[in-house]
Each structure stands twice: as C-alpha cells, then as structure tokens.
C-alpha cells in the first residue's frame, strides 16, 4: 500500500456550507433520538461522528441521506432543503448491501445506469473503478464468491462511481480485520482527496476518527442526543492511517475527545 501522494491540502478549506443541521429533532414514536441538534459541515470536509451506542449517529446519516425525515426542523444541503432521497449523497453502510444477484461489475455500474448513463459508458466507468479499488479480474464474480474485504471494495466502488458531492459512511469498515481495515481507510482517504467530496463518517473507533477526519463531532448519550463537542483535527495531510497516532498532536486531540466521550459512555451505562 502506498500512502496517498497529494500536495498539501488545507485541513479546513474555507468554503460554502454543504450540510446544515439547524435545531433538528427526531422522534421514533415517544422516543426522542435527537433533540435540537445543530451543526454545519463545509464543502469538502471530512467529518467523523463519534458517540456512545444509541446516540443517534446513524440517524444523522439517514437524515442527510433523506431516508429519515426530521420531526423538527429541516436538514439543508447545498442543494436546498431536503424533503426526499438526497440525490447528491452516496451511502456506504456497515451492512453488506451489495445486490447478491448481480456480479461485481453489474453492482458497480448500477449507479450510473440508474441515473440514466448509457450502458457502454457505465461499463467503462465501472471497469475503471473496479481497477481503482484494487479488484481487477473479479468483474464477473458474484458477491458470495468474494471475501468480506473484497465486498467492501466493491461497495466502495459502487458508492464512489457516481462522484456525488456527499459521502455518508456508517461504520463502513467496522466488520473488517485490522489490516484490511487500514488498507481500506487509506484507500478511502486517497480517493476522497481526489473526489473532494464532503464526508460524514460514523465510527465507534476514536483512533480511526482522528486519523481520518478534519473534524470530530462528539454526540451526547441518547435519548435526545445533542452535540457535546466539536474538535478540529489539525494534523497534516496526506496521512497514513496506521501511522497517524505517531504524528505530533494526535495524542492531545485523542485525550481531550476521549475524556469527553468517556463521560457520555458512562452516562449511557448509568441509565
């Protein structure tokens, strides 16, 4: 694996707001998952979201995806107020969501095809992406014939091929073994820097969050989760995820966020 070789990139690009939460509330029946949650994400930012289990991290992604609707307030993206599926967002979930009846190439070319690209162009595009995520020669396999890591790569190609401005990732790599995971994380960073997408990355792994992100959002324990902290990660890029913890400054950020996260985790167990 080669660390991404890209020229210096400002860790906080000045720019327009891509995603905006303004006092968002979300209830499931009588359960309040989120209450008056507010934050903005700038275009091109890589934002990691951490918090104790059940704090509504995944709900935030589903709100941005348009798969859930807020019960109070409305989510705004650069395309305006969101009231149905977000056509500008790609989603990579924790679960295996490849279509098992389609081969690798059919899975990857699905996005362009659904969005009306001509078939031969979609195939060409898909071949390129399969190569880029490192699966050459596996085009004709079905997902059941691939390993967990290979399936993740297909999912990544499937999500990125549409080149959408927003990328939502819900513990996408949590099921992978440590080595595969590091490889995938570096791959993602490399592709992100090239695509310049805005990323919301939900994880329960604080080290992963800091190693990858420009900014870490910490949520309070549910119910009624809010923002507890918003920590900029001013570490130089390009980064190699496996070595990030040796970068000066990493541990300071880690300590601050961890202390606050611990309080919330304890609060979850106290309930």
């Amino acid at each position, binding site marked *: 694996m080669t660390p991404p070789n890209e020229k210096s990139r400002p860790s906080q690009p000045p720019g327009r707001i891509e995603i905006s939460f303004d006092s968002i509330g979300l209830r499931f029946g009588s359960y309040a998952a989120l209450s008056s949650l507010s934050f903005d994400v700038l275009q091109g930012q890589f934002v990691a979201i951490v918090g104790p289990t059940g704090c509504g991290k995944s709900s935030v992604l589903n709100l941005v995806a348009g798969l859930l609707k807020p019960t109070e307030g409305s989510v705004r993206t650069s395309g305006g107020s969101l009231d149905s599926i977000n056509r500008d967002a790609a989603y990579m979930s924790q679960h295996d969501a490849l279509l*098992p009846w389609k081969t690798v190439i059919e899975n990857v070319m699905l996005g362009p095809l659904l969005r009306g690209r001509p078939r031969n162009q979609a195939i060409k595009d898909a071949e390129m992406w399969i190569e880029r995520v490192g699966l050459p020669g596996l085009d004709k396999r079905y997902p*059941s014939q691939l390993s967990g890591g290979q399936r993740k790569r297909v999912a990544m190609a499937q999500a990125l091929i549409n080149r959408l401005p927003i990328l939502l990732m819900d513990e996408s790599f949590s099921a992978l073994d440590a080595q595969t995971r590091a490889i995938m994380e570096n791959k993602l960073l490399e592709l992100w820097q090239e695509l310049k997408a805005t990323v919301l990355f939900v994880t329960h792994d604080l080290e992963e969050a800091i190693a990858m992100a420009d900014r870490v959002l910490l949520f309070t324990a549910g119910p009624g989760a809010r923002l507890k902290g918003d920590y900029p990660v001013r570490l130089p890029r390009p980064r190699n995820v496996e070595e990030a913890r040796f970068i000066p400054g990493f541990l300071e950020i880690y300590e601050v966020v961890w202390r606050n996260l611990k309080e919330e985790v304890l609060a979850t167990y106290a309930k």
Partner: protein
Amino acid sequence: MPSEKQALIVSLQLGLLLGVVGLWEFAARFDWIDPFFFSQPSVFGARAVRWLTEPGFLLGGRSIYHHLFVTMEEMFFGFLFGVFGGVVVGFLLGRSHFWSAVLNPYIQVLNALPRLVLAPIFVLLLGIDERSKIALGFSLVFFIVFFNAYRGVRDVDRNIVNNARMLGASEMQLAWHVLLPSAMTWILSSLHTSVGFALVGAVVGEYLAAARGLGWIISQAQGNFDAAGVYAGMLILCVVVVVVEFGVTWMERRLIRWKDVNVEFSV
C-alpha cells in the same frame, strides 16, 4: 463427490426399484396379492408399452399421444396462468400494505378452501373441455405462487433497498433490480410444487368429467374394473412428472445462477 460413491448411490437406487417391482410381480404371480386389484408390473407395463407403440391402438377413438397432449396442455396453461397471476398479485400486494390488509381475510379463506371442491363448479361454468381443467390448475397454482411472491417482496433486505435508492433507483427501477430478483428465489422454490399441482388440476379435472386426457383414461379403466389400465395410466403420468421436474430444475438453475455459484474462489 467421488465417483465410487456416486456409482454406489445409483446402483442402490436401481436395486431398490428392481426389488420393489420384482416383489410386486412375484407377489401377484404367487397370489399373495390379488392381481385383479393390484395388477402386476409385467401386465400393466406391457399395456403402457402397447399404448405407446402400437400404431392403431385407440382409446376412446384417439391415440394415447392425443390424450397425453391434452393433459400436458391443460397442465401447461394452468401452470402458466397460475404463476403469472400469482406473481403479479403477490408483487402488488407485497408492495401495498394497505391493500394487503384489506384483502387479507378473503385470501386466507380462499386459501383454506380445499380447491378441488371447485372442480364441479368449473365444469358447470366452463364445460367438460380443457378450460375447466386449466381453471382448476390455475386455482391450485395461483395461491402457492402468490404466497411465495408476496413473501419474497416483503422479505427483501432493507439495506439493499436503501442502497439501491441511494444509488438513484426510482420505484420502477427498484422493482426491477431489487424486488423481483429477491422474490425470484421464493417464486422459483414454489415452482416445483406448482407444477405438481397443475398436473393434479388437469388429471383430477379429467377424472371427474372429461372426454379425453390421461385422467379420463384412468377413470375409464377404473369403470371397467381394469386395474392394469389404471396402473398403466399412472405409469405414464409418473414419466411425465419426471420430465417436467427436470425442466423446472433446469429453469431454476438458469434464473438464480448467483445462488448456485461455488464459494471455492473466495480468497
């Protein structure tokens, strides 16, 4: 599977067949069982062969192939209409929680009804020709396929649906790329049962009221106390079933190839 084991299985299968047929034959010859009721393999086997090979041999004025064709035709159309109707209705109700709630009690009642009792009604309504048998086959096949298609659409993985929608799928595209393939495994697994029921519809319909078909031949033989005729008809039916099953299995392999692939490639 090692070839010796395969050979052993096949030889045991053949041995079992020969053993049962042989036992039957001898039991009839030595009068342990009454050949009048039980016939004997050599007699009804010869009868079936005679039906199939003797050019001028007619049953009710028509050759056995004509009867066979009629039964197959009834089975085919009962199966086709039943599968088509079951898939379409199952799909629509699977997608609409509202209408499936409205229609649920009626579907349950119709399904609980032993549908063979509809046979006399179909004969009254449609006459004794093929149409009443096709209708009976349809009524049997429809519910099997319907429940499977419904289940298949309902059981589709939410993660896959959400993923497809995020990738840009419209409702129609979702149905084509996700719901139909997902339901296909369920629908196909019901086809084996359905083919059998389509044949039941055809043969029972003919048995009750018809002027031709294998069911009619069996019914005629029974009316003449001709056990060999009944068994010969059954023998021909068995061969038909085996051939049709083979066809369904072949179709299944082709339509859900993705499930059939080996995992041996995985790294």
